[in-house]
């Protein structure tokens, strides 16, 4: 090692605290870069994995009729790596079912590799089946079986297919295994008795084959090696399956369009068109009754393409689709912009880290160089060249890098691992069985190392070039650093400072005013930390509170919505006179739920928005003919204005509350309706439609006593138009309606016709009814479980707001951990800088401070002066940093609030964070100054003065 490098190393070792602080800054910077890179790659990998888990790991899905022969031929295709299918084995009863609506298990047979490779099955216990006598149970089975099963347990099952008979006929017929359970009308036609051994229990499987069982069955899986001998079922042909999932080889995956085209026997362009569904479809035409006109003689482009696909291959393929979500995430199809978002956010964060770090590390190295200027001067005097001086500084940077970077990367990898673990735990319920994966590829670590080295190199270079040119005497004396401004004020100290703080305060004041450059770095570092902390805290705080406000404003924690049941195979729901009355079904369902012990308060409605009413034009309120939102005015003919109005029935209690402003009782309004005579108008104030004003005006001149005639906007199930006449017994306006979520039943508070439930059931066509119920429950989870057994799944959907809020809070918590962790580390890096600057400043002023003591300043006065200096320094940083930080925070909130969909975003003043900033800044500066000064105070006055003189 040459002499200059030896001196550099020795200087680093002699100034342990400064060297340690600089290395800490490098470690933190590098760690932070590594964490950002690591979390980005981990999050991205997790995202890829969860997408694959969800959608399955295959490239293309074929539809058709496939035999064993087809499968074997496709298997040997050189572009195909794996080919998977799933076939029906049979339906059996769950030995001890939990739900009376879900009594069956559907046994699926999958070929080797299908469960684990293609459908990403994950096990919570045991292993996958290796033959067709072994079975794995799905999570739904576990949930809907009273008895607990474990690996090794045996299941002896009567396997067959579901049949149904109607009340009026003794003859039964098969129904789809996915149909809703028809209870007493159903029976299982047994085809075989089978004994299975439970070899495993799944924790998750791709949604592609989960919930295949439908409303009445849970899924269990076995291994099958052949498509032959599929049991008779619902008219399906023997020996074929209808679906194949194909994985191409790695090289062909990128050209999956070509590989598919070759298999199907069409051109690549045709295959691409089919994948993109880029066909031109003719416009739909309607007859005068509003029914769609279907011309079966005309073949569309799509029809012709489908015919060609079927005719071009001998594998039985009639259709195909790509696994778009997974191919997109792997960047093979490129319409997803998720990756761009990830990369942009990561790049921005890394830029912030690097900029801050260059600033801070440069400062540390600069302090070191300044303190060594005397040494440089001596070296120059014995013949060292400017280049050698420059290299000395760069060498110092290199030594710091070699120490700091590996530690920084290791620390960053460690932090990432911990953060992934913590986030995974917090977000467990959000992840639906997926995991957050820790993944830092080598290239990310190398990139972090390179960026870290670049940061230190840039920092050192600035200082090195300056050090080579510096005049030693000027630099040592820092003579140019002290200046007095012009004017009388520059010489005076404000009276209040003198009075409050005495001579110590005066000296501190003068120091601040006349040696600005000494404190510039400290103050800038503090301002940076304050601004980042305040602005980001404001944004995060506003986001959290806005979200909570929206959620807490809800006066319910469970909502249920119902819809038309589409199970055409179950006669009591769909056919003829046996057809279930949907309105009654929903009313009975909601009334039954309202009796549940977990229900505190509830409100429900039944709605039908399919009616058009024909109102005499003379009854329409003038000026409300056009631009009305929610009241749709259509054609006028024969003096009648056609308009769409929603009919709503409310439960008894809610109905009473709503009609109160009319002054009438439910008895008085029996057989009549109450109309909300308000049409909602929206005026947009800007081009982006983000800023708008809403107001209401009546659309009828007077409604009480009016009879509204209407009919369905299309034929109903029986081919009728369902004409109705409704007499209006009372009128409300939008102002009469409260804002609680319960009352959102009333469809944006405009244009609704409100009825009592019985009147609704007797008047309104029941087929197109939709129901909604809002419940404030004492235990939303338990209530949700009990509701599951009160009706078959097909017709209702439960939303658990508590779970949603819990998930939202979990996400916000993770966001907070990341954001505040980031701010904390940036601040810590800033603190190392402040420590170095302040400590160096104190060291530099040793002689001056010793002189003050020699002239007669007591220790108490000395401490007071130092405390005041730190107070002034903090105050300056806060006076600039606080307004800047608050302004930036407000701006961020303002920008977000103007974005589409973010109108609920509200600014909250960050009082706690402001106070925290003030206290932290003062503590940091004060403690660092006092620490440095305590070391100086222990020194002998005259030794200090002597040592500082050349």
């Amino acid at each position: 090692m040459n002499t200059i490098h030896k001196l550099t190393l020795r200087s680093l070792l002699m100034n342990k605290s400064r060297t340690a602080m600089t290395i800490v800054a490098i470690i933190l910077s590098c760690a932070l870069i590594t964490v950002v890179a690591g979390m980005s790659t981990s999050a991205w990998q997790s995202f890829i994995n969860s997408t694959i888990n969800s959608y399955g790991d295959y490239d293309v899905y074929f539809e058709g009729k496939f035999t064993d022969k087809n499968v074997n031929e496709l298997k040997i295709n050189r572009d195909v790596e794996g080919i998977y299918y799933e076939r029906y084995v049979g339906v059996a009863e769950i030995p001890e079912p939990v739900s009376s609506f879900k009594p069956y298990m559907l046994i699926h047979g999958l070929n080797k590799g299908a469960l684990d490779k293609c459908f990403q099955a994950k096990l919570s216990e045991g292993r996958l089946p290796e033959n067709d006598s072994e079975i794995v149970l799905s999570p739904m089975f576990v949930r809907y079986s009273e008895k607990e099963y474990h690996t090794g347990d045996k299941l002896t099952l009567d396997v067959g297919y579901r049949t149904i008979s109607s009340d009026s006929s003794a003859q039964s017929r098969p129904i789809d295994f996915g149909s809703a359970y028809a209870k007493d009308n159903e029976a299982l036609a047994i085809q075989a008795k089978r004994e299975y051994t439970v070899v495993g229990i799944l924790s998750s499987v791709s949604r592609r084959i989960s919930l295949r069982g439908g409303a009445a069955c849970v899924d269990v899986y076995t291994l099958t090696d052949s498509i032959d001998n599929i049991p008779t079922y619902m008219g399906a042909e023997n020996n074929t399956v209808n679906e194949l999932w194909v994985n191409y080889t790695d090289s062909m995956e990128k050209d999956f369009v070509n590989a598919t085209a070759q298999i199907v026997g069409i051109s690549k362009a045709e295959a691409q068109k089919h994948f993109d569904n880029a066909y031109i479809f003719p416009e739909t035409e309607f007859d005068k009754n509003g029914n769609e006109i279907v011309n079966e003689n005309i073949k569309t482009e799509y029809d012709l393409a489908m015919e060609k696909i079927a005719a071009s291959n001998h594998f039985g393929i009639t259709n195909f689709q790509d696994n778009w979500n997974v191919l997109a995430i792997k960047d093979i199809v490129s319409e997803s912009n998720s990756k761009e978002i990830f990369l942009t956010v990561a790049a921005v964060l890394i830029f912030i880290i690097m900029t801050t770090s260059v600033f801070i590390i440069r400062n540390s190295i600069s302090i070191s160089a300044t303190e060594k200027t005397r040494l440089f001067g001596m070296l120059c005097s014995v013949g060292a060249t400017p280049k050698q001086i420059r290299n000395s500084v760069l060498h110092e940077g290199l030594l710091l890098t070699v120490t700091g970077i590996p530690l920084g990367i290791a620390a960053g990898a460690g932090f990432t691992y911990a953060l992934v673990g913590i986030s995974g735990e917090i977000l467990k319920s959000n992840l639906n069985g997926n995991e957050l994966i820790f993944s830092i590829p080598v290239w990310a670590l190398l990139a972090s190392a390179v960026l870290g080295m670049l940061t230190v190199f840039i920092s050192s270079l600035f200082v090195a070039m300056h050090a080579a040119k510096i005049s030693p005497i000027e630099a040592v004396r820092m003579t140019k650093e002290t200046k007095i401004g012009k004017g009388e004020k520059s010489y005076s100290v404000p009276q209040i400072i003198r009075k409050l703080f005495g001579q110590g305060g005066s000296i501190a004041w003068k120091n601040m005013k006349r040696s600005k450059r000494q404190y510039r770095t400290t103050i800038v570092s503090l301002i940076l930390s304050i601004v980042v902390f305040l602005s980001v805290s404001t944004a995060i705080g506003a986001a959290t509170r806005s979200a909570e406000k929206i959620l807490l404003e809800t006066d319910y924690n469970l909502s249920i919505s119902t819809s038309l049941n589409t199970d055409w195979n179950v006669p009591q729901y769909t056919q003829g006179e046996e057809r279930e009355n949907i309105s009654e079904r929903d009313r009975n369902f909601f009334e039954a739920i309202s009796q549940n012990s977990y229900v505190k308060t509830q409100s429900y409605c039944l709605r039908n928005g399919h009616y058009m009413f024909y109102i005499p034009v003379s009854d329409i309120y003038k000026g409300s003919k056009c631009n009305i939102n929610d009241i749709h005015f259509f054609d006028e003919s024969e003096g009648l204005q056609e308009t769409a109005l929603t009919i709503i029935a409310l439960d008894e209690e809610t109905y009473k509350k709503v009609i109160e402003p009319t002054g009438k009782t439910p008895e008085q309004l029996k057989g009549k309706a109450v109309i909300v005579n308000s049409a909602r108008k929206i005026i947009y104030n800007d081009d982006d439609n983000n800023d708008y004003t809403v107001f209401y005006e009546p659309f009828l001149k007077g409604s009480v006593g009016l009879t509204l005639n209407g009919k369905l906007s299309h034929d109903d199930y029986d081919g009728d138009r369902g004409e109705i006449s409704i007499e209006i017994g009372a009128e409300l306006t939008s102002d009469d309606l409260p804002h609680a979520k319960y009352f959102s039943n009333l469809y944006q508070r405009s244009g609704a016709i409100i009825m009592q439930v019985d009147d609704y059931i007797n008047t309104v066509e029941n087929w197109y009814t939709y129901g909604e119920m809002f419940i404030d429950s004492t235990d939303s989870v338990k209530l949700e479980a009990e509701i599951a057994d009160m009706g078959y799944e097909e017709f209702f959907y439960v939303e658990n707001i508590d779970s949603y809020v819990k998930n939202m809070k979990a996400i916000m918590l993770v966001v907070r951990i990341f954001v505040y962790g980031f701010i904390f580390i940036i601040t810590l890096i800033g603190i190392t800088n402040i420590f170095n600057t302040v400590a160096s400043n104190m060291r530099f002023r040793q002689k001056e401070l010793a002189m003050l003591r020699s002239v007669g300043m007591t220790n108490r006065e000395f401490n007071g002066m130092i405390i005041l200096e730190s107070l002034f320094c903090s105050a300056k940083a806060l006076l600039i940093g606080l307004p800047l930080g608050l302004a930036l925070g407000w701006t961020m909130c303002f920008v977000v609030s103007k974005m589409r969909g973010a109108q609920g975003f509200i600014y909250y003043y960050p009082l706690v964070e402001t106070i925290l900033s003030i206290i932290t800044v003062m503590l940091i500066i004060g403690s660092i100054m006092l620490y440095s000064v305590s070391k100086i105070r222990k020194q002998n006055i005259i030794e200090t003065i002597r040592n500082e003189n050349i």
Partner: protein
Amino acid sequence: MKILKVENLVKTYGSGDNIVRAVDDVSFEVERGEFVAIVGASGSGKSTLMHMIGGVDTPTSGHIFIDDKEITGMKPDKLAIFRRRQIGIVYQFYNLIPILTAEENITLPIDLDRRKVDPARLDEVLRTLGIEDKRRSLPNQLSGGQQQRVSIARAIITEPALLLADEPTGNLDSKATDDIVSMLKMTNKTFGQTIVMITHNLEIAAQADRVLTISDGKLKKEVG
């Protein structure tokens, strides 16, 4: 009247076989208004002696009385207050506070005492030392000689019992040296200031009323 009394003053460094007696049992007295020079070779202990008298270094043993008050054994804060009121020190390298103007450096001991500066006294000191037009200059705007004059002004502004000058001309050229020595003499004559000056320069020492010689930590002889 004895303004300074030093009795059996000892300062040692190190311990055991490595012990060094920088000041070895020194005793002497100085009358009010006297100008005393202490000479000795480099390492003789003269500076150590002076710094103990000034209260900026602590003796190993012995006693020091200034204006009949014993400063040895005084608590640091009390000593600091005593120092700013009763002792003025002029150093070889001026040691002005870089962020204070000449005037502020001069009035520093009075300001620390929270007393008001007598403007007439200040003007007189500035005028006497020939730095009236430099009162608002920062140290980095003054020459070496000017800085030393400021240092002297600071040392005498409070009319201390004792002015200690440690090699006050060591960092100056010959002309500035003459100036400073003249300043000190004039201060002594005009204000009756008691001065104890350290120097290794016998010519400068000869300008004092009395010369004490110190060698190897011991006082050798008096001249004058």
